[in-house]
């Protein structure tokens, strides 16, 4: 038996060619990234351009379907001169406050209920039927009940946002607790953890991915709850702005409010993603992180 070893000459040549290949691969990645961004912008420009052109030539009736320039003018007027219900910032602030309160209360309640029921099989078996029933009620309808019971102020919108958020977060937290790894729980138990320590250090962290996933969706739901609540009856807020614009057949107003709501949702979504990355920094990076 003879050992065969490779020759070590030409190592420098090999290193140099690797460096060149690396440089090329990086340039290719950069070009691809630029292409993606460029195409995205192009689609936006084409879409808005066609819409505007169509509106100018009355192919798309701007009275019903608005036009990009009309929407922009409307937003500009709201920003500079304020809306019929007062400054735009106040409307945004009111809606955000309702959304945020409803989101926090609903999420905290949902997480707590999910963990308690997830950890206690008897409670889960007893309550599961009621949760199913409550979950099958179309929750937006509850908005009317809340307006009657809680009045036109903030409380009725917060309540609607809470019920919108609660069930989504609850279902995910419950599932997350149930999916916690058996071996990991047994490990903690044998290492000496009490039931409370197991909940705090094993159950909650392992349910966290599930809970965070639900927070993304449920913030949108909270916003829907708040806006629909305002729609049904309010003194201030973005929902009222939409409902006023609708009453005046002001399509530009409806679209303008919609875009402002979308921007609000995107900003908060961004903040939640940052929070998520901070909380679950232990997680391996997903496969297709680059390029987005």
């Amino acid at each position, binding site marked *: 038996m003879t050992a065969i070893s490779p020759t070590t000459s030409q190592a420098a040549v090999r290193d140099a060619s690797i460096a060149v290949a690396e440089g090329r691969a990086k340039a290719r990645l950069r070009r691809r990234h630029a292409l993606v961004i460029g195409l995205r912008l192009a689609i936006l420009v084409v879409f808005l351009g066609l819409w505007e052109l169509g509106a100018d030539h009355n192919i798309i009736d701007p009275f019903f379907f608005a036009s990009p320039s009309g929407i922009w003018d409307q937003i500009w007027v709201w920003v500079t001169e304020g809306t019929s219900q007062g400054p735009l910032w106040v409307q945004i602030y009111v809606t955000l406050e309702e959304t945020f309160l409803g989101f926090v209360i609903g999420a905290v309640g949902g997480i707590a209920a999910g963990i308690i029921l997830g950890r206690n099989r008897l409670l889960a078996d007893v309550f599961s039927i009621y949760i199913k029933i409550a979950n099958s009620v179309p929750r937006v309808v509850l908005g009317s009940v809340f307006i009657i019971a809680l009045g036109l102020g903030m409380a009725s919108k917060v309540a609607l946002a809470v019920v919108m958020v609660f069930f989504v977060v609850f279902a995910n937290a419950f599932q997350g607790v149930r999916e916690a790894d058996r071996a990991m729980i047994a490990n903690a138990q044998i*290492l000496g953890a*009490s039931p409370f320590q197991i909940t705090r*250090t094993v159950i909650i962290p392992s349910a966290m991915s599930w809970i965070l996933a639900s927070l993304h969706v449920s913030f949108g739901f909270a916003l829907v709850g708040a806006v629909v609540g305002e729609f049904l009856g309010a003194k201030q807020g973005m929902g009222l702005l939409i409902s006023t614009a609708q009453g005046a057949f002001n399509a530009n107003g409806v679209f303008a409010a919609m875009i402002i709501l979308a921007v609000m949702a995107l900003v908060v979504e961004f903040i939640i993603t940052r929070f998520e990355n901070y909380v679950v920094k232990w997680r391996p990076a997903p496969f297709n992180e680059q390029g987005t």
Partner: protein
Amino acid sequence: MQLQPMAAEKLSQAALPADAAIAIDDVTLRFVTPDGHMMTAIRDFTMTVARGEFACVVGPTGCGKSTTLNLVTGLLRPTTGNVRVMGSPVTDISRDIGFVFQADALFPWRSVIDNVAAGPLYRGMPKAQAYELARDWIARVGLGRFEKHYPHQLSGGMRKRVALAQTFINQPKILLMDEPFSALDMQTRTAMQDELLGLWSQQKSSVVFVTHDLEEAVALADKVYVLTAGPGTVKSVYRIDLPRPRVMADIRYDPKFVEIAKVIWNDLREEVQLGQSRTLQTGH
């Protein structure tokens, strides 16, 4: 067949010594499956592990090897018979027990040092002291440079090292291991077996090591229990008189080792065949 005197001595199950670390006495465990059938996991099972002894349990798949470990932890209670750990009946999870799992049971959201410190922290040790101890144990398993890493950043072998440190830091008098190295490649497994024997020889804990790999069992153990195809019971017990310290990379070429493995394999083979044919018939 002829037994050589006496690398692998077949033992008869004598009366249980009173001072054994683990004494499982004539235990039968039955449970009701979700579809209402009575399942017997193990029957008439007797096993003793003396203090500081390394016992391995081998047997065909599904014969109740892991069940024996759960009897010792108290996570399962015997239907008949009794289990004593360090002389007293098992009631709750004993603080003397450490358990290394087959699956990855590290907490993925905790760094290496937080994982290793978990045991002492759960048991109420002050934080500074727990982390100092954890640092010491991480160094002992050779991961000093990886304290701040998360489990997903480590290789399978490194994660097992963390799991060993996490278990040994509690200084368990009884160490239970459920096929801990079965997911590792051959070279890593050999290294981990050496690591384990090194840690064990310092701690002198009593070990029950469950494996389906007979060679691993012979290489590690003082005593090998061969179980029958399920419902499992002890078929035979062998004392392994290979000198210690043992070096895992070399021991498998030792003629005495080969001879012992052959003897026990002859005993185990028919159970494995029985277990496999049964699996093929019943589909589970």
